[in-house]
């Protein structure tokens, strides 16, 4: 069975002039044109811009040859700004927004020789776990077209899994890179908070948001991280620490590496097929010489509750900027009567935002309001401290912590939309890494009986992406799940 080319393979072929950047770009765009009608992974495909950039690389090849991503097509989640390219965050509110500047991560990719081929669909303002909250309709899972790809970076995950792009950027506030990666059978990396500049990322929860790659291999994730990581004067929260050589760390040797398993946490409420794949993945790590160590994260069971208070509080204040004045949508006054500023704000936000965004703004506004702040927002921030301390204690004894990425495999479109709380509860294994600011990666670890992908999540120490990726890569070498491709890929 043929497989989509990886980032590394494409880069090497372009570098050796086996293929031109323009040929690679044309092939990618042709495949998108063919597959996209059944997938809806993209909000915008940048045909002309991509072909022009690829041609420019070929034209001035000597100056591009040695760049780490020369000629590699890349897709950006549609909450990442690219100058002159419509950026919607999958919201009516920004349906016509054309950013005047690039996200730092996008600019670094292009400077490394990557070619942006389009913007990918997501849950509106990255709020959701299924990509069903997009104002432009749901994305479908390449492994089962009647199912969601997960979310919120569902378009990025579906595009990579279907071979439409070898790499896509996503954003992860509570699992939005890792969970769709797991549900689409690919690799998704959420770096340490601050490792990648958030400049040009449309803000959701500013103390939680982080940009990262979705790829088909751990090597490609490491390669991409090396390009986008690093301090940025435009983001005061970006980490000044030096950027490691992540691909050089992938030695395959994890003998003696201690893998923590919070067995008490992962025993409850996990789909039996997911649990089976997870247990088997631990045995693969053990057979490579890793030591499995039981760890306790006593407050992890409270992470979802703490997360949905912190994230919605931050969202309600971040999304206050969408008021119909500076950019985006403004709802016209009805009946031609006299308008006021206040009613224009409320009307614009009523028409511009979808139900999940309104729900979160409402919850966040409430938990920040006078009289409730201490009981909810402050309490959640204190529990956040306890979750951080749990991880600090665990990392005294282990090098990474292993969990399933999602307790359930991809679910059917429409199946879980009526009960938001149930949707939130499925984020149980992903949100704590955001609350603690830690790097975490999801790597494919098998399939359910219905042939739906399952993901293994590894969480590492702050800024220790090298150990995290080394373990994930070692697992991938033995497990080989990255060789599986959906029937959609032909």
């Amino acid at each position, binding site marked *: 069975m043929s497989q989509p080319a990886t980032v590394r393979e494409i880069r090497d072929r372009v570098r050796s002039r086996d293929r031109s950047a323009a040929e690679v770009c044309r092939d990618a765009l042709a495949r998108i044109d063919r597959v996209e009608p059944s997938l809806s992974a993209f909000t915008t495909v940048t045909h002309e811009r991509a072909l022009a950039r690829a041609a420019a690389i070929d034209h001035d090849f000597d100056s591009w040859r040695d760049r780490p991503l020369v000629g590699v097509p890349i897709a950006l989640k549609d909450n990442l700004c690219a100058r002159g390219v419509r950026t919607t965050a999958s919201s009516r509110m920004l349906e016509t927004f054309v950013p005047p500047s690039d996200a730092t991560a996008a600019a670094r990719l292009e400077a490394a020789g990557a070619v942006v081929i389009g913007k990918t669909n997501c849950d509106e303002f990255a709020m959701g776990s299924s990509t069903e909250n997009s104002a432009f309709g749901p994305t479908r899972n390449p492994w089962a077209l009647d199912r969601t790809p997960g979310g919120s970076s569902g378009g990025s995950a579906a595009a990579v899994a279907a071979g439409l792009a070898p790499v896509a950027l996503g954003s992860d506030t509570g699992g939005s890179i890792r969970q769709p990666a797991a549900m689409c059978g690919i690799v998704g990396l959420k770096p340490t908070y601050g490792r990648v500049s958030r400049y040009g990322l449309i803000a959701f929860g500013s103390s939680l948001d982080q940009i990262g790659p979705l790829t088909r291999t751990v090597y490609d994730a490491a390669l991409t991280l090396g390009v986008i990581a690093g301090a940025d004067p435009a983001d005061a929260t970006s980490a000044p620490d030096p950027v490691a050589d992540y691909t050089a760390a992938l030695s395959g040797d994890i003998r003696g590496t201690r893998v923590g398993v919070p067995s008490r946490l992962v025993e409850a409420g996990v789909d039996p097929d997911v649990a089976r794949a997870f247990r088997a993945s631990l045995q693969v790590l053990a057979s490579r010489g890793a030591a499995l160590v039981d760890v306790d994260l006593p407050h992890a069971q409270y992470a979802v509750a703490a997360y949905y208070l912190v994230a919605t509080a931050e969202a309600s204040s971040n999304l206050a900027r969408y008021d119909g*004045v500076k950019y985006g949508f403004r709802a016209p006054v009805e009946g031609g009567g006299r308008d006021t500023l206040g009613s224009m704000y409320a009307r614009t936000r009523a028409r511009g935002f979808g139900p999940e965004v309104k729900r979160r703004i*409402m919850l966040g506004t409430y938990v920040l309001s006078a009289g409730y702040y201490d009981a909810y927002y402050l309490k959640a921030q204190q529990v956040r401290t306890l979750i951080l301390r749990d991880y600090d204690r665990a990392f005294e004894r282990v090098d990474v912590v292993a969990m399933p990425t999602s307790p359930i495999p991809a679910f059917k479109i429409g199946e879980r939309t009526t009960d938001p709380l149930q949707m939130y509860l499925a984020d149980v294994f992903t949100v704590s890494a955001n609350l603690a600011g830690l790097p975490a990666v999801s790597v494919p670890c098998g399939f359910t009986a219905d042939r739906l992908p399952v993901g293994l999540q590894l969480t590492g120490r702050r800024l220790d992406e090298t150990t995290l990726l080394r373990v994930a890569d070692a697992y991938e070498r033995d497990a080989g799940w990255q060789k599986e491709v959906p029937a959609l890929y032909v």
Partner: protein
Amino acid sequence: MPAGFTREQVAAIATLAHLELDPAEVDLFARQLGDILAHVDQLQRIDTTGVPPTTSVLATHPSDRKDEVRPSLTREEVLANAPDGAPDAGLFRVPRVIG
């Protein structure tokens, strides 16, 4: 705060959030926000006496930078996305604020 929101409470929050809600949304959010708050109430079981809140996970606080002029967007670029911009005057237009 008891689980279950009244329609009046939902309407009051919507006013704070500058959101116009229709009656069906008020009913829906009263139920759903009540469900969510009933779940998060489990946090009250945790003893957090003396535990400092985490507002940021950064190891070091971002240092202040010098207040000096740096490259920025032009006025035209800033106004290009405005739904009712007045580029000649260099202004965003909004409905009347007072009286």
